[in-house]
């Protein structure tokens, strides 16, 4: 078990530098349900972003619908701002295959045409199956395939590494 707050501090500092380097003054943060939303909200506070948080539930965009069907716990996606020509920061807890991010990008573009999208993740555990990389990474972990990393929250954010249940 590992406290996530120090990793989010690291993310915030990387993100601040990156935004300054790219001259982005007003980023819009978009969290991917569920863990990504918790982290995005903390980043928003640390960076002092005034704009409200965007939230994406990518259940209807998954590439494995014909294998697993609808996620029973799907929630509404909500982007309380105009996406057109905005600089977005997409936030997720764990980056693994890249398929979730692919789905999230597809969903974002159904709202409009952003000027740019950055990807910020708490943990990059490798294992990519798609050409997707994060620009902001809290921690890089090398894990055996039969282990999974999970974020618990929302009050106390903790990373749990455990054996995958078969």
């Amino acid at each position, binding site marked *: 078990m590992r406290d996530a707050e120090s990793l989010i501090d690291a993310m915030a500092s990387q993100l601040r530098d990156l935004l300054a380097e790219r001259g982005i003054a007003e980023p819009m943060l978009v969290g991917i349900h569920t863990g990504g939303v918790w982290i995005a909200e903390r980043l928003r506070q640390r960076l002092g972003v005034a704009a409200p948080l965007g939230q994406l539930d990518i259940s209807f965009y998954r590439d494995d619908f014909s294998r697993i069907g609808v996620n029973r716990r799907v929630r*509404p996606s909500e982007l309380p701002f105009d996406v057109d020509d905005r600089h977005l920061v997409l936030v997720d807890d764990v980056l693994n295959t890249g398929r979730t991010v692919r789905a999230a990008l597809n969903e974002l573009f159904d709202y409009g045409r952003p000027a740019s999208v950055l990807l910020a993740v708490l943990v990059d555990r490798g294992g990519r199956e798609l050409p997707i990389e994060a620009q902001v990474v809290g921690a890089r972990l090398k894990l055996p395939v039969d282990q999974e990393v999970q974020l618990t929250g929302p009050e106390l954010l903790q990373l749990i590494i455990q054996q995958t249940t078969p």
Partner: protein
Amino acid sequence: MSATHFQLDQQGRLLHFLTVEGLSRRHLTDILDTAESLHGVAERRVKKLPTLHGKTVVNLFFEASTRTRTTFELAAKRLSADVLTLNIATSSAVKGETLLDTLRNIEAMQCDMFVVRHQQSGAAEFIARHVRPHIAVLNAGDGRHAHPTQAMLDVFTIRRHKPDFPNLQVAIVGDILHSRVARSLIHALNILGAGEIRVVAPRTLLPAQVETLGVRVFYDPSQGLRDADVVVMLRLQRERMEGALLPTEQEFFQRYGLTEDRLALARPDAIVMHPGPINRGVEIDSRVADGPRSVILEQVTNGIAVRMAIMSITLGNHARPAGESL
């Protein structure tokens, strides 16, 4: 096996949607919650999700319909499915082809879902029992029996305005006897634990032993509408009436029609619903139908999200793990 059980797989998940009767509260809240997630899609620039991309949905309408047919069509399109609508009353049925032959032919066109409306009770279930196992069947209204997607969009609309179901008083007014909408709605409200469900109608428009459905019966609207949170008006289905169940439409309006005066008996924040099409001046006064408490057009809009939810849930439950082919 009854339609209730036939529509579920061995894990109790919905494979078809034929009737609300006998489903669990969780089945219904899953549909409502999924519909809630789909509701915002229509506000976006691209009003479409990729969920059913590559699937083919066939609307089989053996009976006329405008709202139900078009909202099913839109629901399928917004999920990126390909949609075909057959108005069979005007095609092969006239040429003497049997229902099963029609079915086999459409099945041969590799479709994944049938949406069925038919004047015979039990038609959707009959089709579900005869199609190939990978096809999901949705009941879009069968005879006097059931109209489950309408019931779900009705309870979805109610929940958005009045989420406190245990303290809810719903009055369903008018032609209960011929109404598959009423039957399905009563089941859905009971499953969701609605406080009190009332039916308000003349004796001639009530089915025998209607109390056994779990409703209170009122013959007098001045009693039945009192303190209601939700007033559901039903269409007077003259086309299904045999003999003289009613004196005249004018007399029905005088005794049961929803006017502003009658609506004043309900709670001040009561909402007014109607499955459509409305007969102005028969069951509802225009001032009420177009008034501030009417959510009739909202029901139409909600019908799209609710049907999207039911389509994606049932087709999703036909999903197969990797490597397993049809």
